[in-house]
């Protein structure tokens, strides 16, 4: 599971929602070994502006097609330039990087909470969890099996940002949607859905969340109150991506930890939000 630096061929790079792009890269080694929650560190162009790489979660992998997908939002110069790169061109990629989600040994109800582009790594996670369930890889007593479930709570600005819902449903996940403008599902923050879910929650339950800091803080609070194990996927400005520069730290109960190698996924209770 070692990290590689490879020239990934751009298979496609298309706008799938306003300013949201889906990038497919040919990256056999990464597709092979990546775990949900891990990320790749991409060099956007060959010149010295923009200079640094940009980190992106692995959104999907198809090892059999040597394919790695990235779902990204155009927010600045780097992502703008990335959105202009064309099929057939190559991108210098480092990956897979970081510690992804820890898949619980014992199955139960998995609640995935995505805010905005935070959905990117959670699709990979949902797919992995559901596949594992389908395979019956978890050894559970019969009566508990019916309580195994992936509940995907999806928050977005409005309906056009709700992307892979049908696919999730087809895999067998339960999907609930919240939008800021109420154009689809619940009107309000996705954490409302989580609170509601808590009332129905079962014994062996796990939360996994990715999204803006404010949302993660609230998710962590809810999970803490309910004493439910919760893993959150964090972001921080990165230079090296491999733990060498000490640039990407986040405050935790055990001091500053590096998001790039100690994370990006942390137990929610560990993280100290400001």
């Amino acid at each position: 599971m070692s990290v590689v630096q490879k020239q990934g061929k751009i298979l496609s790079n298309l706008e799938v929602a306003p300013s949201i792009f889906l990038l497919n890269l040919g990256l056999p080694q990464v597709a092979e070994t990546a775990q949900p929650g891990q990320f790749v560190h991409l060099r956007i162009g060959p010149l010295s502006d923009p200079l640094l790489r940009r980190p992106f979660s692995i959104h999907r992998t198809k090892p059999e097609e040597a394919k790695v997908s990235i779902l990204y939002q155009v927010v600045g110069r780097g992502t703008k330039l990335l959105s202009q790169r064309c099929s057939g061109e190559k991108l210098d990629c480092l990956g897979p990087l970081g510690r992804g989600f820890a898949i619980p040994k014992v199955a139960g109800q998995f609640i995935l909470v995505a805010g905005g582009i935070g959905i990117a790594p959670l699709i990979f996670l949902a797919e992995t969890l559901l596949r594992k369930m389908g395979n019956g890889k978890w050894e559970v007593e019969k009566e508990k099996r019916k309580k195994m479930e992936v509940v995907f709570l999806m928050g977005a600005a409005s309906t056009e940002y709700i992307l892979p819902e049908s696919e999730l449903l087809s895999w067998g996940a339960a999907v609930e949607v919240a939008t800021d403008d109420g154009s689809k599902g619940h009107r309000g923050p996705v954490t409302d859905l989580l609170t509601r879910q808590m009332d129905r929650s079962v014994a062996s339950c796990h939360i996994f969340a990715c999204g803006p800091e404010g949302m993660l803080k609230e998710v962590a609070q809810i999970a803490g109150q309910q004493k439910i194990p919760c893993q959150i996927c964090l972001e921080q400005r990165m230079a090296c991506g491999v733990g060498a520069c000490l640039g990407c730290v986040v405050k935790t109960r055990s001091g500053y930890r590096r998001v790039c190698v100690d994370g990006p996924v942390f137990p929610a209770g560990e993280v100290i939000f400001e």
Partner: protein
Amino acid sequence: MRPDLSVNIAGIRLKNPVLAASGTFGYGTEYADLVDINRLGGLVTKAITLEPREGSPPPRTVETAAGMLNAIGLANVGVDAFIKEKMPLLHKFNTAVIVNVAGSTIAEYVEVVRRLDGCQGIDGLEINISCPNVKQGGFLFGSDPQTAAKVIGETRKVTSLPLIAKLTPNVTDIVSIARATEEAGADAISLINTLLGMTINVETKRPKLANVTGGLSGPAIKPVALVMVWKVAGAVKVPVVGIGGILSGKDALEFLLTGASVVQVGTGNFVDPQCMMKIIHGLEQYCQEKGIAKISEIVGTLEVEK
């Protein structure tokens, strides 16, 4: 015929003149998946202080035009943990290991050096009197010839290891500081550390770095680094280590021609982990094309009309 890239600097023998710069290559192992460490001329560790340090609050880095600012704040495990936990791993690599040393007081520098002196596997010490990110972290030591000389002179007394003085570019007269450290016993002089800089988020009206200011590195500073290497190399007898914005073989050659005996690569490692490998290859190619048998022949051969 393969050109000879090996160099001797400050009594340290290096396979080639390409080293990883302090603070950009961790404690050596972080890049082990991606870089064949054994092919490097050497590597310089993150700054080591007496006690462990947490470092500055995040955000600690931000990109600027052709550069980056960092305010890591000398985060490190402290000298004892370094010796116990990190050195044994570093020692396994077949490359020169130089330990970067920082402190808040001269006494702290001396104590760190004293403890490192006995430690096996260390080829040299780089005395960082130039970190811009900690008020008491060296910046002031490097801003004035007397204090700079004092730090080098005192540490000199407690070690027989090669001592390299690492200077800050944020000064009026780099030559006087370089000369002072040479006289105080530095075996070589590294320059440059980062330029002091800052950048603002105009929406939040706050500095982008939590520490407000940080150190500027990367291609943006290369012209400044070169002129300082040129001035210092012309003024001291000890070898000069060129640092600042080196990302390619051509960049490294600019420094060698200008007078640096070896170079260090910092930000370049982040941009492209293969950077140092490509530089070594680039130097080899240049020598081959120009019929240069030994890389050290070209050091300081810049032709300047007068």
